[in-house]
């Protein structure tokens, strides 16, 4: 094989491979999952719930006020409304089936941080940080994607900029940037 042909072929093959496998949903930069938009087991639309019907975030993500995790709503929370509304939709039927067969619904995490980072939802909610600040305009998303980088630099930038005056905290309270606030 001629050297030029070799180069040409390999570049063509590489481009082909990239074209075939490239998926904007799961690739941006290494370790940056901004824009990650996985498929979910149930075609749940945040736009319909949070925007059109104006259901507050904390109605379903019940744990965000008291726990580290915001919590994915359990199936019984869905059925609070869907016992009456759109009962026959095939997507709702998936929840009905899950409850009947006692098999939990396995969702795919969109907004996630590494295991060595301890982010606590409850304190942020308590300090009036809006959900959209980190999660983006979820109310306009049909299929949820990761709106922000959720990297350490991105976290720290807020922690530096939000002084206790901005947050109107009680005197003595401070927004910390110590490593041990998140890493332990």
């Amino acid at each position, binding site marked *: 094989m001629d050297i030029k042909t070799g180069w040409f072929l390999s570049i063509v093959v590489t481009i082909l491979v990239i074209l075939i496998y490239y998926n904007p949903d799961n*690739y941006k930069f290494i370790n940056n999952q901004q824009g990650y938009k996985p498929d979910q087991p149930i075609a749940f639309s945040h736009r319909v719930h949070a925007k059109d019907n104006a259901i507050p975030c904390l109605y379903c993500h*019940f*744990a965000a006020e008291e726990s580290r995790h915001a*919590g*994915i709503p359990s199936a019984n*929370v869905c059925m609070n409304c869907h016992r009456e509304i759109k009962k026959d939709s095939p997507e709702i039927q998936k929840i009905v089936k899950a409850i009947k067969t006692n098999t939990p619904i396995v969702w795919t995490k969109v907004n*996630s941080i590494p295991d060595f980072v*301890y982010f*606590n939802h*409850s304190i942020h909610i308590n300090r009036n940080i809006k959900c959209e600040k980190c999660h983006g305009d979820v109310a306009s998303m049909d299929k949820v994607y990761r709106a922000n980088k959720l990297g350490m630099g991105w976290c720290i930038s807020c922690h530096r900029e939000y002084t206790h005056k901005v947050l109107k905290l009680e005197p003595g309270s401070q927004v910390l940037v110590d490593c041990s606030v998140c890493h332990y």
Partner: protein
Amino acid sequence: MDKKQENRYWTKLEEVEPEVNDALQNSEKSTTRMNRRTFLELLTLSFAATSCTKFRKPVQKIVPLLNKPEYHAPGTSLWYASTCGGCPAACGTLVKVRDGRPIKLEGNPDHPLNQGGLCAIGQASLLGVYDSQRLKQPMKKGQPVDWQTIDAEITTQFQKLVRAKKKIVLLTGTIHSPSTRAIIDEFLRTYPLAEHLSYEPVSLTAIRRAHEKTHGKALIPAYRFDRTRVIVSFDADFLGTWLSPVEFTRQYASQRARLLEERKPLLHVQLEARVSLTGSNADKRMIISPDQQKAYLLWLSKWLAQKAGQTTWLGTLANQQGLEGVQSEHLRELEKLADILWTNRGKSLVLSSASDENSQVVVNFINQLLGNYHRTILLSHASQQNQSDDLAIKNLLDEMKGGQVGALLIYDCNPVFTLPEELNFMEALKGVEVTVDFNQFDDETTELVQYLCPDHHYIETWNDAEPQVGFYSLFQPTIRPLGNTRAFQESLLRWMGRNDTYYQYLKKYWQKNIFPKQSRFLTSLKFWEKALLDGFVDLRQNRETAYVFSQKAVKSAIEKLAEIKSNSGAFSLEIHPSHAVRDGAYTNNPYLLEFPDPVSKVCWTNYVSVAPRTAQQLNIKDGQYLQITWQGKTLEVPARIQPGQQAGTFSIAMGFGRKRAGTFGTGVGVNVFPFTTFKDDHFEFICQEIQVQPLNRFKKFALIQTEDLLHNRPILLETTLAEIDKADHTVQEHNYDAMVIWHGHKFEKHKWEMAIDLNKCIGCGACIVACEVENNIPVVGEEEVHRRREMHWMRIDRYYKGELENPRILYQPMLCQQCDNASCESVCPVLATIQSSEGLNMQIYNRCVGTRFCANNCPYKVRRFNWFDYPHNDLSANLILNPDVTVRSRGVMEKCTFCVQRIEAVKIKAKKERRPIRDQEIQTACQQSCPADAIVFGDANDPDSQIAKLKENSRKFKVLEELYVKPSVTYLKKVETHDV
């Protein structure tokens, strides 16, 4: 070549000689085919490009509950009040349950027995529930069967035995549960020839029998160390393994602290041969051999009887011969001790671990002379924590051999392993038609029985306990049973033809029997709910019942003791319970295997303790194997030279050398149970006249501490009662001309600090295991410990002081000192360890690259390096991991963080409630579990906090203060007592 070219730097031949270059290029051009190098280039390019498209995070799944309980949010912990089932002491616990799985046990601070402390065994026993080697289903002759088959077969077998008039015997460990006792009673009524026996390898039968003789009641009294001024203990290891160690430790340490406030000593004298944990804490250790104990008891009783003017009825006591055994050098000390005891009548306590009845009768006599009954010894609160009758066990074996026993049901004991070899339990078992074992784990006994009906782990089941008469403690399940197991009580109910669950039975029992005893609650439901919430109900009688002290019993006991002559000169072997694994029930628990003996600091094995003098005499080196021969039995065991050991006595811990313990415990150490015997009416743990032969083999011990001496450096400081209030001159003030990188950190909001009271710390090591469980610290194994790679964030340093024959032993908990001028911080090239704004020395795992400079530069040697990815492949055992703490990977440095996850959790809680953090709201894991309450943690910036006050205590000092690293841990000096 022009000048420019001459001055040019060149690196290749081609650059200076263009001809050569051209020639080279021509030769390359001539081959237009692809060569090896180009091929590799192309391959790399396409590989890199292809893999670029593959950079994606592994998809993480998230599984919400189908039906969420109202009270629980994922990621938060629920706490349940329960009881520890680690040993029969029944300490109260709080079980931390995270998303449905219990991950940590903590002592219940409101529980009157342990008052918040929890020992190492209790902490580690939680791992048992996740043990993947647990028996998960009923079995018949090694084959899995279902419960219905077992129930049907066993009931028919029982009926057959009833017709054949054969005995059904229930052989259990200590049953302190009143409802279980009621079920057993019903079972005994259902099967007329049935019998129930309690068996503990190390029993306190002698105390029970002695009280029957002297007080007319067979009981073990409750001891109140918190009312004493003088404690004299004959080998009773009450802080380590004897009866109820956590309860006693709390009483002992609190009494020490209370008396110190009044500037008075608590005098504790221990007379023993081996160096026990209790002995190492004594103000005075008198080294006597186990068989001298009787002579010392006689001597003391004689002296005190004379003082009390009671010699007239004790004719023999005046001129008995047994007193010869008292060493002449101890006579003066004993006289002084007797004087002190006499002046502290009613405020003293004399204890003995003796397993023979006569010695215990004399102990009762001494306590009676001193007026300790009803004061420091309470008969009304009789302890139920150890129930066993050695003689009954011997009789059972005789009956088994005689074919009278038709069925043997074994629960919560391992007789094949623990019974003396001469009783030949294995042979006797063959004569029994039906054998059932309720054990949760595969052990030596389960191997030989027909039916295995595994019980739940105590975390999974309901239960109750009555550790002291009138004091009830509740167990509640905090996880669903992980296997197809069934409560022991439920099995008995089925075999009685009853269908109720144990929970129903228990609730009904409480309603019927315990509810009527109290008057606070009007409805039994309210009573039950409160009991469940608190975890216990205290209905102990505070009125002591009168008794008549039988002097006749004392007289005959003294006469019998006086007959016994001590054989000095020959070597004897003393077998004692292991501090970590007790009688072998925990030999497969990795936390406890790596838990060092408090005195010798050896882990992962047992050994024979040899006195330095004996070692010199027999030319024994540390770690050398010894062949011990006694009555035709031999044992090969490594020797550990133990300062303070009695010269003629060799001591070995029991519980090791198990043949069927599981992956971790099988074959670890040496089994000494074959050397135990049945003598007169009790199990004997002392072998007289042994032969010792050093072998030419050596063992490398896995040691947690390798340096025993202080080298006169101010690491551990002591003071005396007289000097305690005087100005402190021990810590030298330095003029620090040395360059310091930092010009003082500012801690504006909080400053987390710790204080450790060395006068309270007894060195039991509960904090070590509490820290391991809380912080996901891996167990590394014997070989790695031997290479000094153990991962314990907290260790207890033990130092010897004084003469080699009988040194003073001092303990010092050592953990990261969270220095303000930390020497580790200045050497980290990647800033993985830096100072926080709250005085913590942070360790950031994800930043660490593993240079280990910090560990080298740490003067306290408290940093631990992950040499490996310690295996986390047992998915079941992983469930104990604390989700609030990162599991560290290979190549990362780690160390104590002052439980920063707990600090952050409380900070968040307080912030949400818009209030400042309360003092003592944050408790580190070590502080929480400390039975002696020696550790205090808090915010030193808060002037009202306990820590701020302790920092100003007259006993304060900091370890290696002269290094100017400014540690955040303040130690309080130990107070030496010189009264005897």
